């Protein structure tokens, strides 16, 4: 018995280790491909130079411009820019969690959230059309190629408007660049938007974000002002809960 017990213990340990290896979630760091995980900060964007609208879209833009003023800005009402406008335009950090099966991107600005599924990991079917759309990716060497469809229409004709037929292809890669004597890591996103109802040719953009591990992500609640305006219209005042007496004070 004295000989068997250590052997059993060894078997238990081996079994536990095996179970743990099955249960543990692999990270992208264990993958042979680049790992985009971390906190990034927008570091410049090359905007599309006046994308060529179709004739029908030009008419739509003229009607839009006649009706909408600069105050009618969707951003003021917390409407997500969505794809392909989101990367990496607003001056707020972006957190990426990269796993072999998917890439999750959280933009502090507007609290935008995006999921990119890896094609080889049986991505789920797309749900309803959304601002970020449905993104599926595969690797081409060290470049992650992402295709996005299922986008909600973005009908703001003085911005980069898109229809439900919009199709976005991105090529994401890492580059290192020396800035002020320090080697910095950049995430480069080469974006091609194809939307034949809206544009006569593909629209090309490029966005960069610099790796910024020391930055802290903050909460970005965007709708407080809209709620205030509603309360004002209704003539309601919220109770001042902070004015409640503190029972720990005499």
């Amino acid at each position, binding site marked *: 018995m004295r000989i068997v017990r250590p052997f059993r213990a060894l078997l238990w340990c081996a079994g536990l280790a095996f179970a743990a290896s099955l249960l543990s979630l692999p990270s992208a760091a264990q993958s042979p491909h680049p790992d985009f995980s971390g906190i990034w*900060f*927008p*570091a*410049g*964007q090359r*905007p599309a130079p006046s994308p060529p609208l179709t004739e029908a879209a030009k008419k739509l833009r003229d009607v839009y411009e006649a009706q909408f003023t*600069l*105050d009618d*800005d969707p*951003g*003021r009402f*917390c409407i997500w*820019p969505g794809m392909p406008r989101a990367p990496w*335009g*607003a*001056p*707020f950090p972006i957190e990426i969690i990269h796993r072999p099966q998917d890439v999750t991107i959280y933009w*502090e*600005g*507007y609290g935008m959230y995006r999921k990119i599924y890896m094609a080889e990991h049986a991505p789920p079917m797309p749900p309803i059309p959304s601002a970020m759309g449905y993104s599926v990716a595969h690797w081409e060497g060290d470049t992650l190629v992402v295709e996005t469809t299922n986008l909600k229409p973005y009908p703001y004709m003085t911005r980069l408007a898109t229809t439900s037929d919009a199709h976005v292809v991105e090529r994401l890669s890492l580059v290192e660049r020396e*800035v*002020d004597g*320090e080697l*910095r890591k950049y995430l480069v996103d080469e974006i091609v938007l194809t939307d034949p109802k809206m544009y006569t040719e593909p629209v090309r953009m490029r966005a960069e974000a*610099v790796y*910024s591990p*020391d*930055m802290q992500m*903050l909460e*970005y*609640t*965007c709708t*407080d*002002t809209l709620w205030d305006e509603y309360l004002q219209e209704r003539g309601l005042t919220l109770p001042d809960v902070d004015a409640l007496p503190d029972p720990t004070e005499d």
Partner: protein
Amino acid sequence: MRKPIFALAGVLLAPLAAAHHSFAIYDMETEIEFVGVVDTVKFRNPHMSMTLRETKDGEERIIDFVEGAPANMLVRMGLDPKSLEPGQRLTAIGSPRRDDPDAFFLKAVILEDGTRFDMLRPGQTR
């Protein structure tokens, strides 16, 4: 060493900050300086707002800064709700709306100790 890099990102971002929200409704070339006491301040996203009680030539009036930088950007600059609160005396620089000269975009704040915060320069953040 991170700070200058971040500052560089901020410089590159200047047009981006403007791009996510059009400032064309304001006459950004015009800058008017007001000295007064903070009446109300709302640290909000997508934009903060503030009113300032200014006394000039014996007359008191409320200056309405209907819009400024997003709260999160202010906090990263080092301007948090504890350093900008009602009752505080400061200098505020505003650009008027083109269609309403009594409504301003808050471009900069100068605290009593002389510290200046420019709202459209995220690279200034500490």
